[in-house]
């Protein structure tokens, strides 16, 4: 398993380079213009000069090479400098001062470093989307297990009904419904998320929770619906297996049979689904973020796409790709842990 992991990590490097090349070419090929949002009152010649100021005049391979250098050579330097200067982890080390003013990855919309904006967006994304995912998974697993164990019971039927409706109602609808109910009618929660809010004491913590409730609720509903269905289906498959009967026949406690043996063997598809979902935490939730004005990475990505802000889109998409490759690798390793018969070598 170790050699497998090492080999996969090594192949990940060319894979990621290839993926970033494909994304870059895709964005190049896609129609669009960073000047699309500039008002029509700005004359075409001025727009042309603005494009040149963004570096759009240079040939495609040069621009890709520049991005590679900025992303894999200059940005790490900035990061190491930050680690040794401001972070609590390595701040005691002498300042490395590797970065000396070279051009970083610059966003076309804001003309500022892309990485700084991503770092600025991370807190709200992790708080809201990450929390929703954790809650969604924590609710989904027991629902799936109980639904399968008591198949066709009232609990199962209600669970099926709610999760299917939850999944088939898109967030652009459910989000507005909860805002109308909880913000407009009841006035319990704010409809607009304040990204500048700082949690310093109990009171501010309560404010933070109240502004997170609605987006987390909407997002967690989707996650719960999806994962509980896979959990249920997989448990059902395993509950009928011979080894379950053998285990029961040996006089094992029902609890042990279900929660240790069956659950462990049913986890493979669920682990896959969870691992597929984790990178999308970073990717944010485009529609839900928009509805609740959370302005996390999802909103950053969609505004960058609409503004054809190529460096921003490419960088976010690359980080996303990195997480996908990483978590799919983790899932593959977990398969081996869950079912030692699975071998890759």
């Amino acid at each position: 398993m170790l050699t497998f992991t090492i080999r996969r990590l090594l192949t990940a490097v060319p894979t990621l380079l290839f993926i970033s090349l494909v994304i870059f070419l895709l964005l190049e090929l896609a129609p669009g213009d960073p000047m699309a949002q500039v008002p029509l009152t700005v004359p075409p010649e001025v727009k042309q000069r603005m494009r040149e100021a963004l570096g759009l005049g240079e040939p495609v391979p040069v621009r890709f090479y520049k991005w590679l250098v900025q992303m894999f050579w200059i940005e790490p330097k900035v990061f190491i400098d930050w680690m040794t200067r401001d972070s609590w982890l390595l701040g005691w080390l002498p300042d490395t001062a590797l970065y000396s003013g070279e051009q970083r990855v610059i966003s076309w919309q804001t003309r500022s470093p892309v990485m700084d904006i991503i770092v600025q967006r991370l807190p709200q994304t992790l708080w809201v989307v990450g929390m929703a995912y954790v809650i969604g998974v924590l609710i989904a697993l027991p629902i799936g297990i109980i639904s399968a164990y008591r198949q066709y019971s009232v609990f199962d039927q209600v669970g099926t009904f709610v999760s299917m409706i939850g999944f088939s109602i898109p967030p652009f609808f459910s989000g507005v419904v909860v805002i109308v109910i909880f913000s407009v009618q009841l006035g319990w929660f704010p409809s607009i998320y304040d990204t500048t809010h700082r949690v310093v004491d109990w009171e501010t913590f309560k404010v933070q929770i109240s502004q997170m409730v609605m987006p987390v609720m909407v997002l967690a509903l989707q996650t719960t619906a999806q994962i509980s269905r896979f959990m249920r289906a997989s448990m059902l498959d395993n509950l009928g297996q011979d080894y379950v009967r053998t285990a029961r026949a040996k006089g094992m406690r029902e609890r042990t049979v279900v929660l240790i043996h069956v659950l462990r063997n049913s986890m493979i598809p669920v682990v896959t689904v969870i691992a597929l979902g984790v990178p999308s935490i970073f990717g944010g939730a485009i529609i839900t973020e928009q509805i609740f004005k959370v302005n996390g990475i999802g909103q950053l990505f969609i505004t960058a796409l609409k503004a054809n802000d190529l460096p921003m889109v490419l960088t976010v998409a690359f980080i996303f790709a990195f997480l996908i490759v990483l978590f799919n690798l983790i899932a593959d390793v977990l398969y081996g842990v869950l079912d030692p018969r699975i071998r890759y070598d």
Partner: protein
Amino acid sequence: MTDQTATADPAPVKAAKERGQWADVWAQFRTHKGALIGSGVFLTIVATVLFGPYIWTVDPGYQDFRSRNMRHILACFSLPWGEIASCFTSPDTAAVNVTWVHPLGTDNIGRDTLARLLFGGRISMAVGLTAMAIALLLGTLIGILSGYFRRIDGPLMRLTDLFLALPLLPLLLVMVLLFRERLSSAFGPEGGIFILIVCGIGITSWMPTARIVRGDVLALKEREFVLAARSIGTRPARMILRHVLPNVMSPIMVSATLGIATAIITESALSFLGLGFPPDFPTWGRLLNDGVQYMQQYPERVVWPGALISVVVLSVNYIGDGLRDALDPRIRGL
């Protein structure tokens, strides 16, 4: 019960048993109440959207400018007791804005909601089912190949990673750019867009299915019955069809159910971005999308399409449940 492991056995009596197997599946499927009701509802919806427009012949694109923003006829029940009956008999004089000409009401430019729901249903159902089928086929195929044949596992899974990482919007924009003209000259503007949308959704949503199926196959192929089948020289194609595929049916069924909902919603997101059908083409997702801003005044504009999407997804889910049970040899044998 023990004799049920016979399915894991390369059944020696083939031809005769094969037909019997499907009869068995049907017999088991029939006993599943949820599946029967689900199929009934599903077929009713299909029949309604297929034949409905021939019965309710109002043109879904026609704008009756004088009756804009009509409520649905059931809005009569919001009136005081005494006025309800007269509202139904002579809606023109009622205190709510209703008419029998448009029983489900009209939208803000006077298009008949019932006609739009019927017509939109055709497109949404067609897009949902076809796109789901494409995604499922691709996903299952790649998942099984990748899980079963170790040599192509690496390349296929890296391909999956690539597709997972591609941003959807630019991908679709590029597809539109490259293929719209060619497809619409070959299949007409609507046919061309249908193919484009269905393929677009299909090839951008097969990856989770592929990963899930592969994970299951990886575990499955180390099971005793597979090893046994292999040791007696079963060929890979037969192994996959007879032993592997039936055992990964349940995650595929779940993917199918979730896939329909995703496809219908994605279609509406696409037309919202101008990548979908022409703007005067109603679909359920689009009706829902357009209705959201009127939710407080005209709740029916979101309730009808939202409920229809949910009912379709629910019924497919129950059909999937029934099929899964019916295809599961252990349950069928009981």
